[in-house]
């Protein structure tokens, strides 16, 4: 009894909060529009959306959010307000397991055949029922080989080389427990998100040995540290490495032999989407080879569209960080069940930093 009552009060409180937070959010159904939510910063370029609006007369309402969690709670609170979301792999898994997603009708998506099979059938959607891969990014090392040599260190080919004493205060890394524990686990030959206490303990000790080499933990602009010379090697996302290389040609990408993490942002449709037909039109449009090539060129994310390859500009095609080889992609893996390990990893990470 008590629990249902608290639950009711809780639900009411929640409802009140959401009503306050969300009044003013666009809506409406059945009309010529689509409500789409995803990341800001031209993640789905305005140019592409304009073209779609002109071609079809369907208006796209674009809602910018700053986290996967925000997308999930918005979709949970207003399942009939949003049609599409572009969200990261693990969140596709959570949303589908929570029953929030529509099974896509492939009959309405003839362009799905353009999607590179290497990005299909992943753990979060084994049968490609719920999601369409849109943007791919991976993490790897960006290195200044000259500076590494000047410090007297061995050339860097993988994570294990980051532990060299010569690199003291010269490494910059993404600031996230799961990412850093992943780096350490891979360097020891394990998989991401291990939960076996013995392996976690081993990784913890190895992590502590890395402390002195890290000059900066930075998620948004780690490439700056290589450009301004305060670090000689950095573990970062591919789009950041691309920026770093563009700013300083001395910098070189290193795809660690031990393996790398991959993130795929995918389109998903709300189960109660008000404008499903329009949404299918947009999904099919995004998968047109020319459109997809243009998107990749603007956003600098690797293309998931194999038919787009011939429409990509030369400098994109020749850039190994943008045009990922299948060999590199095959050496990547996802962070699975992140929520199950973060508490432990976050604790280790706090201890590591407070050392």
């Amino acid at each position, binding site marked *: 009894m008590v629990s249902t009552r608290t*639950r009711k009060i809780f639900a009411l409180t929640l409802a009140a909060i959401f009503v306050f937070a969300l009044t003013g959010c666009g809506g409406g159904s059945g009309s010529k529009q689509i409500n789409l939510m995803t990341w800001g910063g031209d993640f789905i370029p305005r140019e592409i959306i304009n073209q779609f609006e002109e071609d079809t007369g369907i208006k796209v309402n674009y809602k910018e959010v700053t986290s996967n969690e925000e997308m999930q709670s918005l979709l949970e609170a207003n399942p009939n307000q949003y049609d599409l979301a572009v969200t990261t792999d693990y969140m596709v898994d959570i949303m589908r397991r929570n029953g929030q997603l529509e099974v896509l009708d492939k009959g309405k998506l003839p362009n799905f055949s353009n999607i590179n099979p290497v990005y299909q059938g992943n753990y979060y959607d084994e049968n490609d029922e719920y999601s369409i891969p849109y943007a791919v990014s991976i993490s790897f090392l960006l290195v200044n080989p000259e500076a590494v040599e000047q410090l007297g260190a061995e050339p860097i080919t993988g994570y294990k080389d980051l532990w060299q004493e010569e690199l003291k205060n010269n490494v910059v890394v993404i600031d996230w*427990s799961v990412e850093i524990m992943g780096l350490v686990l891979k360097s020891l030959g394990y998989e991401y998100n291990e939960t076996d206490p013995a392996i976690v303990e081993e990784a913890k000790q190895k992590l502590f040995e890395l402390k002195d080499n890290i000059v900066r933990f930075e998620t948004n602009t780690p490439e700056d540290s290589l450009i301004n010379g305060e670090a000689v090697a950095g573990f970062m996302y591919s789009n950041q490495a691309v920026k770093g290389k563009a700013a300083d040609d001395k910098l070189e990408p290193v795809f660690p032999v031990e393996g790398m993490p991959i993130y795929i942002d995918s389109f998903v449709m709300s189960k109660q989407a008000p404008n499903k037909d329009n949404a299918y039109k947009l999904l099919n449009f995004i998968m047109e080879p020319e459109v997809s090539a243009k998107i990749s060129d603007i956003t600098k994310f690797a293309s998931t569209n194999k038919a787009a390859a011939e429409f990509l500009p030369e400098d994109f095609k020749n850039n190994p960080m943008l045009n990922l080889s299948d060999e590199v992609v095959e050496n990547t893996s996802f962070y699975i069940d992140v*929520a199950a390990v973060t*508490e432990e990893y976050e604790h280790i990470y706090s201890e590591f930093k407070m050392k």
Partner: protein
Amino acid sequence: MLNMKRIKQNAPAIPILVWIGLLVGIPLIYVLMLSLLSRDNLGNIVFEFTLDNYRRIFDPVYLKVFLNSFLLATLTGLITLFIGYPVAYFTAGLEPRKRSYAIVLIILPFWISSLLRTYGWIILLGNTGLLNNLLMKLNIINAPLPMMYSFGTVLVGTTYMLIPFMIIAIFNSVDKLDRSLLEASSDLGAGKWRTFFKITLPLTMPGIAGGFTLVFIPSLGMFFISDLLGGGQNIFLGNLINSLVTKGRNRPLASAFSVGMIGLVLLVLFIYSRITKNKKEGLFL
């Protein structure tokens, strides 16, 4: 009858109270409730009562994070006090026209985004920053001096960001000070320092306590400063809560930390209320 009159008198305050009640009260209750719930492996909230989250924040590692934040906030309060007090005292003694100029100058930085101003410090203190370049040009040093990414850099950031609050709070106190008391003190034979410690300081204590509170509380939560200037080398409460909520998908634990942080703030407010209550007796007498 008396009650009706009172209600009428306070009527204008009701909308504000309702506003605060809704926008501060409800989220607070929400956080409090969340901190007592569990979550499943997907990060969803499970309606199961537990005290585990509170048990966890008393872990030695997390207590160190609390201590680190407390230290940062306290040091920020003390440094802004020592720099801010003379500035406020001097400003209050200026003639009215100059005084308003000075106040504008103190408030001026607020017109620029605090994020931008934090980036300013990176440009100043970085390895290829202005200061290092200057020192190297002058041949004082031959390799860049590492000034970024430490506790000290974060402290510089929070001090810089919050010092106007301290100055304004003390300024208001000094401004109200009855200067004839200072004359009386000197007539009775007290020297400058003695007058300061026996008269000025006790009488401006409410301003000091108010300024300290205004500086202490926000410095607990300014996680962007420690992210940008601290290079993530230190963990403070704000960072921990931020990463638990977003990437960690552990809102119950994050809520427990928030409640802990609210506790710290309440402690400071309690001390503040004690100081202002006893101001007539003075703290240093």
